[in-house]
């Protein structure tokens, strides 16, 4: 059992949790993920580690309510327990292997969408702390859904914002900002890291490929066990099938077949929808006749 010690609302239906998981916290590195089960009959849900504290033995996750299982995870309160938190899974970020002097000369651009802002935060913090130049583009549907903006702003050189409705920053896509920075603003980047919705990462990859900038994407595929056992997380990278859980979750974005990945991600959409409907019907208390 894994105790929840902190809960914070980051945006409507987006929550941050700090969970006691000493073994995971002790081994965690940026870029890795955990699998969480909220309750005994629960589904195993992969979530990127947003932060960790080895002294306190806690890991931080950021979760958006999307279906039954993420809703259960989000409904937990401080003092409650998740039945399982297992990890850290997957490979740590590639830049962890770079030595400090190399990092100082590197120029990074992070492009995050929605809750993707959570997993980039520890990476941005780490790189900025090592003296690398770090710019960040955050994208969201609207200003309300922008998360961790202030935290990220403090640990990077420049923060740019794009919202679909223009309620904050640029009205439009993160790729508009990306194009602008490079073509009109004369920015030069050695590395781009993108985390967010699959479709956003696809277009970021297409854009950076045009400029020839090395780009890493962290994939959020379907998973069951997260240890290489099931293959639900299969993804084509450079024409070769990889398992996101053990070969990733970070891959060269220019080699990822995003169309296939998006299609695979939707495999359970209908099943999930069915389940959510069932659950709502179960919880719905019929009021007809109550006042008769």
């Amino acid at each position, binding site marked *: 059992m894994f105790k929840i010690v902190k809960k914070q609302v980051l945006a409507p239906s987006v929550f941050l949790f700090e969970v006691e998981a000493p*073994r*995971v916290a*002790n*081994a965690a590195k940026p870029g890795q993920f955990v699998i969480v*089960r909220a309750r005994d*009959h*629960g*589904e*195993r849900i992969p979530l990127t580690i947003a932060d960790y504290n080895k002294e306190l033995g806690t890991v931080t996750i950021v979760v958006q309510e999307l279906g*039954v*299982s993420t809703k*259960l995870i989000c409904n937990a309160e401080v003092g409650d327990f998740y*039945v*399982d*938190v*297992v*990890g*850290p*899974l997957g490979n740590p970020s590639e830049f962890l292997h770079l030595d400090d002097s190399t990092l100082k000369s590197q120029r990074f651009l992070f492009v995050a969408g929605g809750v993707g802002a959570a997993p980039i935060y520890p990476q941005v913090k780490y790189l900025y702390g090592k003296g690398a130049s770090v710019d960040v583009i955050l994208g969201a549907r609207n200003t309300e859904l922008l998360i961790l903006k202030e935290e990220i702003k403090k640990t990077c050189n420049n923060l740019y914002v794009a919202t679909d409705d223009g309620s904050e920053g640029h009205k439009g896509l993160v790729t508009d900002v990306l194009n602008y920075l490079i073509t009109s603003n004369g920015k030069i980047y050695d590395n781009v890291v993108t985390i967010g919705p699959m479709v956003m990462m696809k277009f970021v990859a297409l854009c950076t490929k045009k400029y020839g900038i090395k780009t890493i994407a962290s994939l959020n595929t379907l998973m*069951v*066990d997260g*240890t*290489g*056992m*099931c*293959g*639900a997380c*299969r*993804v*084509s990278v450079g024409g070769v*099938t990889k398992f996101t859980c*053990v070969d990733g979750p970070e891959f060269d974005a220019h080699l990822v077949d995003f169309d*296939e990945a998006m*299609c*695979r991600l*939707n*495999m*359970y959409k209908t*099943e*999930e929808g*069915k*389940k959510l409907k*069932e659950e709502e019907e179960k919880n719905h208390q019929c009021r007809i006749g109550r006042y008769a």
Partner: protein
Amino acid sequence: MADAKSRVAAKEQAPELRVKNFKEVAMGYNEEEAIAEASRCLECKNPRCVAACPVSVKIPQFIKHVKDADFLGAAQVIHEDSSLPAICGRVCPQESQCEGSCIRGIKGQPIAIGKLERFVADWSREKGLIVNKTTVSNNKKVAVVGSGPAGLSCASDLAKFGYNVTVFEALHVPGGVLEYGIPEFRLPKSIVNYEISNLEKMGVVFEPDVVIGRTISVDDLMAKEGYCAVFIGSGAGLPKFMHIAGENLNGVVSANEFLTRVNLMRAFDSDYDTPVYVGKNVVVVGGGNVAMDAARCAVRLGAKVTVVYRRSEKELPARREEVVHAQQEGIAFQYLSNPVQIIGNAKGWVEGIECVKMELVPSKDGGRNSVVEIPNSNFNVSCDMVIMALGTSPNPLISSTTPGLKVEKWGGISLSDPSGETYRKGVFAGGDAVTGAATVILAMSAGRKAAKAIDEYLKGISCN
């Protein structure tokens, strides 16, 4: 009196009923039936069945006790050599082991040794009569990695020797393949849980949600957590694919994924949150026990199922009983056929599988027949789901994070001694992690052998 040449039939759920539920298919013998079947045993002086058993259960002796209606005596005899009889009685490939070498089998049916073993194990479990002795602790800690058959049997013996044993499991429940792989209708999970709670009563500690190699390394278990020795029984969990076109289409899954969703996550039960996609027309590729398990689960979830296998019925590696059960349940078999590509629709979902006809060619050295493609014999099978059951290989997570461990080319952990010693001092291994995918009984045997080797090793050194 029954004909001594044929065995006493064991009751089974009728096919038309069982395809609608996940309850156990084989219902086992009652006392009278067990005694009648036991009476067929010839009590050979040089029993070939014992020699064919990977753990050398004293088969004629336990059967003699059954014959005399002394079921407790029978249980005690089995227990001397096997730590998981209720499981082995159900899932061992008896026809190629004990029963396959039974003298009775020459002119009739061999003794139903598996069913008798199961009867005795179930009887003693239900009566609560076999209680493992707890031993005084010697305060030496041993870590067991993986809680499948190898890990469970190793932990059981180590606890009997007096060690403080912790079993680390990557998934959220212990049991390994017994839990995620073998379906409820073949091995009820209540039996697996019983065996695990027995070990807990002996003082074995289970720590789920720990992925050795990620959560903590073998090095740290020994250096930081004070384990004097480590047994690796992490199994063979990586699914194989064919690397043909269309394999990443939606609706194409590994048998591991399908079985894990159904067995471990219990997706067949609406009280559980994990979904499972099941097609209307399912093709299962492969002919082993895992293929049969996947096919029979799919049938129970409402699918029409065809097993595609590249050799003929005779070569099916699955237990005979599973094949017969699958056939009774209406599963079709397309023999001598091999997939060449999977066909998808515009939405990225599978809609068929293209196969090629195969031909058996006798091998020159007298071994298993090999198969070759028949040119221009391609044909399509339309389907909306393909389950790949092509076998599994060991997970490299532990071998790649444990310095000093040597690994075979195909991923199995190399042993420096058949007893289970690896090339890394203090680290032992056994089961599928060493041999590649094999059987429950072989893994159990390896676990017990390694427990003995660990005991020998730790007697000779000071630890803590």
